[in-house]
């Protein structure tokens, strides 16, 4: 391997690259042109740098669109400096002194990788190369056959060479690879026949089945997670994530030290568990469902709007295209006519007429665009009003600022009603909490009285008993718990409201911005076109005058 060490290592500098690019560029006439113009590194598609005695890969960051890179027969020791070459399809690093596979994490398009004749001892760090089809790792130091299992993740891998490695001496080598990489077609440049594959499969069936089972499990878990994540995403889009369970209720009690202490009181546990929690969760669920429904509505509204806008734009574009097509037809005729006309006065008249045509086209196109802009503006405003209304309604309903709940009697009526049928508002949560608080307070005071009277038979834990020193303490404790609960509910509510509002503003902002962008672009396009036509006419004029 030291064959090249007797020579001076060379640096990959600009000069070397230029030379290589120039040599490998286009030939003959095209080559002359290329020389005349110079070739930009970023336009180069393939580069060959073999037998250059390169020690370090460097200065390649300009070759953005490079697809094929040959760096074989150098003295490279480390794979580096290839991060920018994301379009690379073919990379040849054979006959170098590389010791570890690294620095390939950005080359997602790589299909053919050759690391033949290096010093690699472990197959590793190839995860990003999802399109890998050909992998050449012959004449390396790979010693562990189990390392091949790593290659199972490359579904497109068809050709593999590992000859000349210590693993290849293993008598089971071929069978093992055949069994663990069933999609492989060529191993060490030889085709794997079906008979061989069958044999290998039979031989390693048990271990492979186990492996497969494990892989399937992992796959299933990943999918599961993915599904859950998507669901959560969906709920988040509806701003009601985690309201479809006890999450909010649990969070109320996690930070609430007093509350958890108080729950040990006789009677409180049941109250908490059966009446309060159940009702609370039902309300949460209702909110959740309502939120999803509202989300659907908003989505439908948005889709409808987008569709209509698209249609309008499409129609307008069609009109514009038609106008331009008509103009072009005429334009061709008149250009020819001007060219063929010999009389100067006629030419002038025609040119004048033609430029009039151009102006008219410009006016027509601009009118169309202005018209569309006005129409779209109107529609967008309408959508804005509607979506704001929708969001407002949603927020209002969730917060429940309905008059009947503010009504002092409303609470009682609410309490009297079975919770199942009631609405789905945060205010109800708060009411429920208030109600619970009252009950809790009542129980606590009762117990305090009992304790004071010494009638308390049951044993209370010490930290709970310590609360029942006097009325103030217990009331404070209960109050603190209540405050925490209310805070939690308020926080959740605030979060929901802010997020839905910010979503709304963002959406509207985006729509406005998009529309403005569209308009600018169209106006620019029209201007450009008109300029082009005008310049064509001008050049004709010049030409005529010169003639």
């Amino acid at each position: 391997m030291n064959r090249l060490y007797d020579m001076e290592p060379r640096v990959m500098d600009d000069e070397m690259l230029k030379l290589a690019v120039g040599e490998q560029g286009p030939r003959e006439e095209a080559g002359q042109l290329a020389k005349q113009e110079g070739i930009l590194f970023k336009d180069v598609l393939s580069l060959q740098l073999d037998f250059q005695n390169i020690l370090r890969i460097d200065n390649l960051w300009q070759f953005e669109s490079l697809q094929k890179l040959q760096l074989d027969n150098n003295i490279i020791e480390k794979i580096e400096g290839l991060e920018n070459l994301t379009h690379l399809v073919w990379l040849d690093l054979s006959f170098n002194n590389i010791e570890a596979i690294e620095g390939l994490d950005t080359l997602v398009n790589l299909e053919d990788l050759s690391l033949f004749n290096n010093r690699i001892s472990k197959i590793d760090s190839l995860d990003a190369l999802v399109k890998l089809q050909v992998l050449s790792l012959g004449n390396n130091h790979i010693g562990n056959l189990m390392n091949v299992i790593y290659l199972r993740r490359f579904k497109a891998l068809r050709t593999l060479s590992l000859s000349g490695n210590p693993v290849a001496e293993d008598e089971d080598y071929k069978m093992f690879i055949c069994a663990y990489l069933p999609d492989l077609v060529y191993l060490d440049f030889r085709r794997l026949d079906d008979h061989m594959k069958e044999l290998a499969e039979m031989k390693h069936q048990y271990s492979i089945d186990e492996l497969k089972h494990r892989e399937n499990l992992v796959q299933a878990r990943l999918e599961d997670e993915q599904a859950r994540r998507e669901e959560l995403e969906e709920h988040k889009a509806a701003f009601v994530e985690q309201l479809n369970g006890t999450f909010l209720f649990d969070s109320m009690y996690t930070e609430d030290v007093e509350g958890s202490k108080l729950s040990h009181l006789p009677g409180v546990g049941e109250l908490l568990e059966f009446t309060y929690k159940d009702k609370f969760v039902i309300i949460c669920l209702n909110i959740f469902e309502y939120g999803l429904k509202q989300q659907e509505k908003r989505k439908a509204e948005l889709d409808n709007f987008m569709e209509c806008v698209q249609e309008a734009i499409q129609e307008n574009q069609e009109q514009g295209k038609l106008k331009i097509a008509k103009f072009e037809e005429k334009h061709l005729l008149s250009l020819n006519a001007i060219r063929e006309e010999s009389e100067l006065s006629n030419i002038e008249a025609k040119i004048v007429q033609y430029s009039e045509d151009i102006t008219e086209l410009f006016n027509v196109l601009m009118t169309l665009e202005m018209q569309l802009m006005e129409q779209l503006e109107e529609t967008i405003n309408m959508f804005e009003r509607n979506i704001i209304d929708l969001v407002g309604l949603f927020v209002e309903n969730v917060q429940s600022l309905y008059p009947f709940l503010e009504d002092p009697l409303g609470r009682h009526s609410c309490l009297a009603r079975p919770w199942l049928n009631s609405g789905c508002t945060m205010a109800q949560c708060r009411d429920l909490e208030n109600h619970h608080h009252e009950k809790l307070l009542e129980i606590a005071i009762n117990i305090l009285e009992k304790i004071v009277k010494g009638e308390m038979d049951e044993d209370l834990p010490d930290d709970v008993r310590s609360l029942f020193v006097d009325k103030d303490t217990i009331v404070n404790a209960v109050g603190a718990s209540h405050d925490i609960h209310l805070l939690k509910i308020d926080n959740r509510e605030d979060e929901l409201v802010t997020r839905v509002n910010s979503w709304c503003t963002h959406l509207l902002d985006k729509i406005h911005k998009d529309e403005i962008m569209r308009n600018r672009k169209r106006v620019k396009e029209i201007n450009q076109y008109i300029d082009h036509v005008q310049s064509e006419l001008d050049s004709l004029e010049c030409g005529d005058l010169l003639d």
Partner: protein
Amino acid sequence: MVQAVLKATSSLDSQRHARMEVLKEKVEEEEAAEREEAAERAERGEKTKRPMEVRRGETTMTQEMLRDLERKLSEIEVSVPEKILTFTKDTIDTSKLPLSYQSNTLKEEHLLQVADNFSRQYSHLCPDRVPLFLHPLNECEVPKFVSTTIRPTLMPYPELYNWDTCAQFISDFLSMVPLPDPLKPPLYLYSSTTVLKYQKGNCFDFSTLLCSMLIGAGYDAYCVNGYGSRDLCYMDLTREVCPLTMKPKETVKEEEKAPPKKYAIKPPRDLTSRFEQEQEMKRQEAIKAEEENRRKQEEARLLEQENAKTDPLHGLRVHSWVLVLSGKREVPESFFIDPFTARSYSTQDDHFLGIESLWNHKNYWVNMQDCWNCCKELVFDLGDPVRWEYLLLGTDKPFLSLTEEEDEGMNDDDDVENLGKEDEDKSFDMPPSWVEQIEISPEAFETRCPNGKKVIQYKRAKLEKWAPYLNNNGLVCRLTTYEDLECTKTLEVKEWYQNREDMLELKHINKITGLNVDYFKPGHPQALRMHSYKSMQPEMDRVMEFYETARVDGLIKREETPKTMTEYYHGRPDFLSYRHVNFGPRMKKLALNSAESNPRPMVKITERFFRNPAKPADEDVAERVFLIAEERIQLRYHCRSDHITANKREFLRRMEVDSKGNKIIMTPDMCISFEVEPMEHTKKLLYQYEAMMKLKNEEKLSRHQAWESELEVLEILKLREEEEEAHTLTISIYDTKRNEKSKEYREAMERVLHEEHLRQVEAQLDYLAPFLAQLPPGEKLTRWQAVRLKEECLNDFKQRLIDKANLIQARFEKETQELQKKQQWYQENQVTLTPEDEDLYLSYCSQAMFRIRILEQRLSRHKELAPLKYLALEEKLYKDPRLVELLKVFV
């Protein structure tokens, strides 16, 4: 038995009598009205006659008048009456008809009596009506009741299962013979078998046959004896529009307008004057109304002209047709079928002027309703005895609709009658048909029309039909449409073909424009679908359409004019959709080359492409124009979805040389481009150069393809001409009769089978038979006899073998002797022989030697085989079942 039946019918008669009395008054009134009408009609007839007489009286003989008359007469076109088809008894060979044709059974006799009785009562009660058509004579002069002439038969051809195709078949299969007396039903009604045999008949024959087949197929069908219009009776379709010329009505689909969406943009404000619009609209409407008026007037005038000829015998012409009642075979509404034309008419149609009676294979009904308004008010409720008088009781009534039943429920008499009917003896019903089973041979079925040809004259159209394979060019149908009513100026000709090898299906010739359009079925060697042309010369106006899925290049259509050629493609991998080639005038070359190798120079090639979804829109060429003469290439790219303008690029291919004499490869002004969103790399000369080089190549390719297209046109034209000349017909492999190959093969197979059979018979030849024959027959063999038999048999065989050997030996010796003689002769005359004789001798020698050698071989072979054969026979004899028992013990 007969007595009882007679009694039953007589009691029935009395009832009927009572009912008829009730009816009689009404009928009489009607009859009176009819009579008046008839009288009027007669008067009218006279009136029409009178002017003629007057004219005749006035005519005095002056020269001028004579000339005048002559001129007038010469103007009148005397239409020579066609040779009227007759179908009389004389032409029928009655000798071979079965017995049921030549005599009546007892039951039939009785039926005739019943019918006579009925007829008598009928004529008594309704003396003004014409006598009933009950039992005409058949081909053997035997009176047969009409119902028994109907022989319900289900034909084995699926095509005859539905009424429309069935009626069409009968109208094609039989040729029409008018009634001997148009005002009376015929005296004779032949059996359907005879009618089918001679393939002609009158309307009664037609409807009887059709009725038999329809009833067989499950329809509720009836033969009707009534009165029809003149056109109907003479199968005159000249006033009808040909159904083939009628264009299918375009069903204008009302486009469902989607409800305006919530956010649909508002249309820009309309700034035109509404008043002006309204004025304009009014003006337009006025013009339209005027046109409409004129058109209507014109139509009315034409109609009047056409209907000018009225029929003096209107309403008196007897006709027979078929009535199909609703109910069975999912027929939703009752209708008439005219058996001559196979057309169906509603029961309200103007052509049908009245019904006397109708019958099926079970019963006979007389119409008691008034036909003053044609058949428009007739109710076909055959269960209603007031409207329809039945002949036989007991056969089930077709139906009695519910409302009628309720109506009758009001009437006590009818109720009683109904009850009585049900109690009545049902023993007498219609005897089975005397007609033999109706059969149509497959050949006759395929030939369809008599002699395989039929011509129908429609209004301004003539339709000719032929049986398949009758014309050797496959022509099966020709429709000629004319401009005028007299059918002298041909407008267009449509010809339908079948079984053509070139898949030609329809040829449409427009005589006015001279445009020919050929339509092909899938399967033409060049995938041709349609070819429209005025002349078969190349480089003329023509359009060819193709089955694009059958073609490799996806060509749909190719249009040609003398100067251009346009091709349309679909589904090509290079997304080419259109190619238009302009040709310049042909260069005058020295006449060394033929015309084919001197193609016209192409001036301009325009190609358009579909959008290639794999490329971004602004790199995907939508149209490229090669201006070959100007050495320019224009490119227009596809438009991006959010843009209204598209990229354009124009290359000037001019090669220039700069001041120093160097070739200029590429200069910026050789490529003028407009880009919607300018990109950097496209500005580079290198890019443009490469693009231009590519285009140059593609131009060459396009030119080549255009040239190939031209060649293909020539080829197709040549092929078409050849096909037209040859017009070979294909024969299905299932067609056993016409497929010569399969016929030969089948015959060969049969022959092989036959030979096989013969060989088997031979193999079964009994070698013991001659010896067994010597023994007394019927006795069992004794062992001694068996042994003797065997010995004899073996001896005989031995003798034969020896004889054969001797024979061969004798022949061998003879040959040798002859040869020796010849040789001797040759040696003697060797000197004097001519070379010819010598040749003759030599050839004789070689032949003789050959014969001798063969004989020698045969002899040695015989010697070899003879003992084997002998042993084989011995073995066989031991195993012979007749001898085995006896010989076994012996051995």
